[in-house]
Structure formats: structure tokens, C-alpha cells
């Protein structure tokens, strides 16, 4: 039996009726009970309707609360990985002299390179590309310079300066110029510079060596430098003239 139709706790009183006025009373009472039942039924319906209305009213609120939580989570993720406040960075450095070597390198030509070096793993797969700026010095070791005299012609004695071959003295990579493009993000490690620096240096030196024009220009400038240093010493000696040659015997005028 539905709840709305539930009988009241006390069943209707059933009495033996004999007289006509008693019948009216019973009918009245029955009608009254029916009215009460209907009223209760309607109250039940009303309560049910109220309960349903409440439930539907709560559902959007719950959804809004959930959306707010999701928005907060997304905001956190964004701030953690893609934003946040500006970084404050400090760098403390120290330098201590460890060793001093005596050298005698005369650089006669300087080339500034903007290049890109590729770094691969042991299997030949690309790890990353690194763009860099490097300055390459080309020259020679002055201790390999040889001075001799050619007196085969007594009237035209020559001081012969033999220049060694021009070579790459050093390739200096600017550490602040390194810019990386990683094939995979996980290759961006905390020691990636250990492989990047040598790769950039080797790349710059290789590119320089592949360009013969650089060494030709360097040789020309070396000749000018030696002539500039030597000519004043021989000006007062008319017997001697200066001849500059390379290791292959080529004379430079």
C-alpha cells in the first residue's frame, strides 16, 4: 500500500448501528476520515515535491563547487610548471690561479663564428643542437720561426725569414651565447654543458680548417707583421734585403 494511502494507526471504528441518525454519524465520520486521508496524501505529495525541488536545486551548486576545485587545481598546475613569480637568481664565483705556462703564440687573424653544433648519442641519434658564438685565432708559434742568411749573391745578400704553417691557435666559445634545442626534453640535464662545450669548439675549429681563405689571409698578415718588425733593423744595412718564405719555399713579396 503506498505511503500516502497508509491507514492511520487506529483503524476506523466499526460500530453496530441500528438507528438512522447513527448512520449519518458514521457516514460523516467516514467522510471525515477520507478527507483526512486525502489531506495526508496531499501533504505527502507536497513533501515529495519539495524534496525533489531541493535535490535539483543542490545539483548546480555541487557542480559549481566541483568546477571551482578543478579551476584551482588547473591554476596550481599552470603556476607550478608554466608560470609563477619571477625567479630571483644569484651567482657567486671564485677564481684561483692554478698554473702558469710560458707560450709564444702570435695570432695574426681572428674569425668570429656563429655556428650550430649537433650532439649525438653513442648510437648516432640526435640529443640536441646547440647554437654558439666563437672566436677562432689563427697564427703560429714564434719559436718555429727560423731566421737564416742567403749570401749566394754577394751583391744581394738576403736575410731569409722562414714562417711556419699557419694553424688554429685556439677557439674560444662564449659561454653566454649557448642556446639549445633538445630533441627530447629529458636530454636537458644538469651537466649538458660538459658535452656542449667540446662539441662547439670542435665544430668551430673544423669549420675554420675547412676554409683555406682564412689561412691565406693569415699568412699574408703574418708576412706584414714580420716585415714590419724586421725592416727597421735592416734599413741602415744596404747589403741586406729581407726575404720571407713559408716552409714550402714560396716567397712572399
Amino acid at each position, binding site marked *: 500500500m503506498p505511503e500516502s494511502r497508509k491507514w492511520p494507526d487506529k483503524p476506523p471504528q466499526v460500530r453496530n448501528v441500528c438507528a438512522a441518525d447513527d448512520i449519518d454519524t458514521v457516514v460523516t465520520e467516514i467522510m471525515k476520515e477520507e478527507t483526512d486521508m486525502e489531506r495526508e496524501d496531499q501533504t505527502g505529495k507536497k513533501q515529495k515535491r519539495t524534496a525533489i525541488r531541493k535535490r535539483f536545486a543542490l545539483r548546480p551548486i555541487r557542480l559549481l563547487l566541483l568546477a571551482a576545485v578543478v579551476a584551482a587545481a588547473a591554476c596550481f598546475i599552470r603556476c607550478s610548471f608554466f608560470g609563477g613569480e619571477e625567479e630571483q637568481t644569484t651567482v657567486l664565483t671564485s677564481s684561483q690561479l692554478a698554473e702558469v705556462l710560458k707560450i709564444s703564440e*702570435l695570432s695574426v687573424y681572428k674569425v668570429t663564428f*656563429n655556428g650550430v653544433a649537433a650532439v649525438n648519442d653513442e648510437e648516432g641519434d640526435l640529443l640536441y643542437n646547440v647554437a654558439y658564438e666563437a672566436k677562432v685565432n689563427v697564427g703560429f708559434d714564434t719559436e718555429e720561426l727560423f731566421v737564416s742568411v742567403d749570401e749566394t749573391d754577394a751583391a744581394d745578400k738576403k736575410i731569409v725569414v722562414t714562417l711556419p704553417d699557419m694553424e688554429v691557435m685556439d677557439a674560444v*666559445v662564449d659561454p653566454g651565447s649557448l642556446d639549445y634545442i633538445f630533441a627530447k626534453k629529458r636530454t636537458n640535464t644538469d651537466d649538458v654543458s660538459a658535452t656542449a662545450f667540446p662539441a662547439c669548439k670542435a665544430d668551430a675549429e673544423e669549420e675554420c680548417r675547412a676554409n683555406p681563405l682564412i689561412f691565406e689571409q693569415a699568412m699574408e*698578415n703574418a708576412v706584414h*707583421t714580420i716585415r714590419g718588425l724586421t725592416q727597421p733593423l735592416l734599413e741602415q744595412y744596404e747589403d741586406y734585403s729581407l726575404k720571407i718564405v713559408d716552409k714550402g719555399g714560396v716567397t712572399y713579396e
Partner: protein
Amino acid sequence: MNRRTFLFVLPALLLLLCGCGAKEEEQTEKKPEISISDMRAVCELATMECYYHNTAKLDSEKKVLFWNTSKKLWIEYSGIVKLGIDVSRVDMKVDGNVVTIAMPEAEVLSCDVDETSLTKDSFYSETKGLGSGKVGAEEQSQAFEAAQKEMRAVVEQDEALLLQAGDRAKILLENYVKQIADAAGVTYEVRWEAVAESD
């Protein structure tokens, strides 16, 4: 959560994450060939090569939402500094058998990183806090740049070292004059004077 709620939340979450978005990475244009931006004649006589033990300590702090995060990077490596003179500013005057050479003061010609000193053991890193990010190439470049600048500053203030480099340049130039003199069968006396600093 029932299916209806899930279907509402999922698109909202995706939209929020996509809408916030990561910073677009700037793509560095990869040049297929090396580019030479400058070629010029120089005349630098490097007379000393100095090795420095350098350390760089980078400390980076960032606030994420309500808490602090930090990243630390330490690098230990050798830096190389070459000292010498600009030979193009050397002026030689000969008077009889006296050669007067005006030579500029020694200076720092180059600062380099000794890549043979860089190994995996040269780098130490630490990160703290959720959302701190990891220590990568950018931090390393910053640390190296600062360390190289500091090394150059230290050398430029070391007058004794610069004097030594200048003295060695004098020895090398004097040896060259002696070689020419020996070849010509003459004897030269070398005298030195400083070049006035150019503006």
C-alpha cells in the same frame, strides 16, 4: 561522481589547462651553415697561458602559489686566460746599433673554458619545493658566463701577472732582434719604452 558530472568537469578541466598554456618556446632558427660574422687581421703575441680553478654557485628562488622553491647549481672547472701584447702597437726605432722598442702593456687576450676539465662530476645540483623546475642548460650558461667574467676581472687586477707577461714579450722580441742581428753579422743594443695608452 556520476557520468553527467564527469562529462561536465572533464571538458572544463581540459579547457582550463589548454587556455593557461605553457609559454611558447621560441624556436631558435637553426642555420644550416656556419656563419662568419667577422674576420679581421690582428697581431696579438700571447706570452703566458694561465689556468684558473673556477667555481660558480648559482642559487635561484621562485615563489609558486603560496610556498618558496629553489634551485642550486655548483660548477667546478678550469678556465684558461691568455696574456700578451698587441704587436701592432709596437714601434721600433733604430739609431746606429741602438734599437728602441716602444711596447704596450700586457693585457688579457682571451678567456676560455678548459673543456677537458668538464666532466659529469663537475656539476652538482639540487632542487627544493614543488614546482621548482629542474636545473638545465639555461642555468649552466648563466653560471659559466658569471664565472668567466669574474676570472677576467681577477686577472685584470693581477698586476704582477701582467708584468710577467710583458717581460716575457720583451724577451721574445729581443730574441727576434738578436736573430736578425746575428744573421746580418751586427750587434744591437735593445732599449725599452712604454707606449702611451690610446684613448
